[in-house]
């Protein structure tokens, strides 16, 4: 827990050093070429770019500690607000991806692991391999090509159709439409999230399926499982009560670890689907050399990732009473 803080501090330092080692000057990039030296100097002064690097860094860390991440050059607004506005979109997308992955992968993995070398296992294993080998952005493009372009089943990008949803209260479109009882907007939001969530979740389906299968397989050879069968318990009870509840630990670990992969996967999937989340925001920030925005986003991603890992650790004790901290 306390080890996390120095790690975060080192991360900010790493990002800050990289930012300033980069070729290209942000003031010139933002103002364009046709500016006088006085304009540039004024812009630099306003954004604090004229101060020594170490002063800029200390200022940044101090303000970050109070959740003040500075002002975005590009959006001319506090970084915190820019990120907060985009964050619900990414959370909604990630939540749907996890849902899809869990619903597909765990039953498939259990079925495959319970009957090794059967036809279910063969299908499941091929499916898992397919999932981990699929480049998610290519799947995204192919889905757009087929489902949106050819069959017109779903919209090709974005988060909602203009004019269907009312003003957003929470930033989460699903929550908004349920609160406003706007069922047309709910359907619209669902249709929009379907393809990006599938593209983003495909690798997780593959990994989760493989881990579930091997975890079930491994647990099935434990002595208490043999005992349970010898007691004459039905196969269903053995599978659900004895095998699955014990096979859950590695599965939870993988879900947690994959959340990090999901976060970075969302950067590219959001770009493919023009999804207005923090992932596409990062790419905007990177291409426009928006120092405070990129630094703030990297900080947000790493804090999120570290927090998720802490939560997963805490979950172990909940799932497995043998583990105590």
């Amino acid at each position, binding site marked *: 827990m306390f080890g996390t803080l120095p790690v975060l501090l080192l991360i900010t330092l790493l990002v800050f050093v*990289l930012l300033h080692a980069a070729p290209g000057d942000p003031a010139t990039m933002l103002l364009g070429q046709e500016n006088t030296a006085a304009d540039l100097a004024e812009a630099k002064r306003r954004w604090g770019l004229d101060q020594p690097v170490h002063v800029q860094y200390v200022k940044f860390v101090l303000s970050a500690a109070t959740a003040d991440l500075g002002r975005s050059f590009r959006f001319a607004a506090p970084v915190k607000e820019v990120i907060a506005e985009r964050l619900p979109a990414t959370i909604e997308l990630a939540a749907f991806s996890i849902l899809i992955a869990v619903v597909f992968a765990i039953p498939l993995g259990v079925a495959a692991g319970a009957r090794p070398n059967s036809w279910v296992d063969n299908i499941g294993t091929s499916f898992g391999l397919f999932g981990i*080998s699929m480049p998610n952005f290519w799947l995204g493009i192919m889905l757009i090509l087929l489902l949106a372009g050819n069959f017109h089943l779903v919209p090709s990008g974005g988060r909602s159709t203009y004019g269907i949803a009312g003003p957003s209260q929470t930033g989460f479109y699903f929550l908004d439409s349920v609160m406003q009882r706007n069922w047309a907007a709910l359907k619209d939001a669902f249709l929009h999230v379907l393809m990006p969530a599938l593209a983003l979740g495909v690798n997780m389906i593959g990994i989760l399926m493989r881990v579930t299968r091997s975890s079930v397989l491994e647990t099935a050879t434990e002595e208490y499982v043999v005992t349970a069968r010898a007691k004459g318990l039905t196969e269903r009870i053995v599978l659900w009560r004895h095998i699955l509840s014990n096979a859950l630990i590695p599965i939870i670990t993988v879900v947690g670890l994959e959340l990090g992969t999901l976060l970075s996967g969302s950067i590219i999937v959001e770009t493919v689907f023009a999804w207005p989340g923090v992932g596409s925001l990062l790419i905007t920030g990177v291409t426009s050399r928006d120092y405070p925005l990129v630094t703030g986003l990297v900080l947000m*991603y790493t804090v999120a990732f570290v927090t998720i890992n802490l939560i997963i650790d805490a979950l172990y004790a909940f799932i497995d009473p043998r583990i105590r901290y």
Partner: protein
Amino acid sequence: MQPKFVVGASIVCVLTVVGVLSPWLAPYDPGKQTLEAALKAPQWFGGANFLGTDSLGRDILSRIIYGARVSLVVAFAVVLISGFVGVTLGAISGYFGGKIDFIIQKLVEVVWAFPALLLAITILAFLGQGLFNLILALVAQRWIQYCRVVRGQALSLRDRDFVMATRALGASNQRIIRRHILPNLIQISLVIGTFSMASAIISEASLSFLGLGVPPEIPTWGTMLADSRSYISTAWWLALFPGLCIFLTVLGINLLGDAIRDLLDPRLKRTVKG
């Protein structure tokens, strides 16, 4: 011989041959623009452009063949460099312990706190495009996998009898690591390396797709996919073939990795036989 191994190894062999021999295999210069022949659909065996042409009239097949070269170079370079760095640091960290171990493990923790693609994007955003920067950005994250696993193995190896005996005979630390610790870490590193190669190929394609990878004048599967997005409703072949190549390559490497792991980890195999 397992079918997984045969299929996986064949795909990797084909990729290697195509990558190495691309100047002789490609029917056209991959950068040659023929604007009057732009966006031609695949003509299969009936015409000049087997898999069609892109918006600048460049031959898709030739670009895919040259693209294999970039994937190959990046994948091998990333696996070899990150393997070397990770295994060395992991072995040192586990074998010596103490302060060195503490420093190396702090470094691992910092890098570990970055989601995989994020660190690469951050590095490339600041250092700019280029093959060298791309490899550096991919290595920056991947060495820790080796480091963590190898450290654990080295920790258990250093107290084993054969290492103690060597030490008692007066062997130097360097000799013990090189002759007695490292050879025992080859198997596990091989498995990590195979899977790491698959992820390096996907990452390279992702970064090139985002416009952060290699410069646009070098044909890669990722940049071909990025170019395809503007013509997605009119020219499906631009997106289909490069993506299919990435998918099949990664599938082949993963099959090979599975096969190698089964071969080296008899415990898992026993479980499968039940």
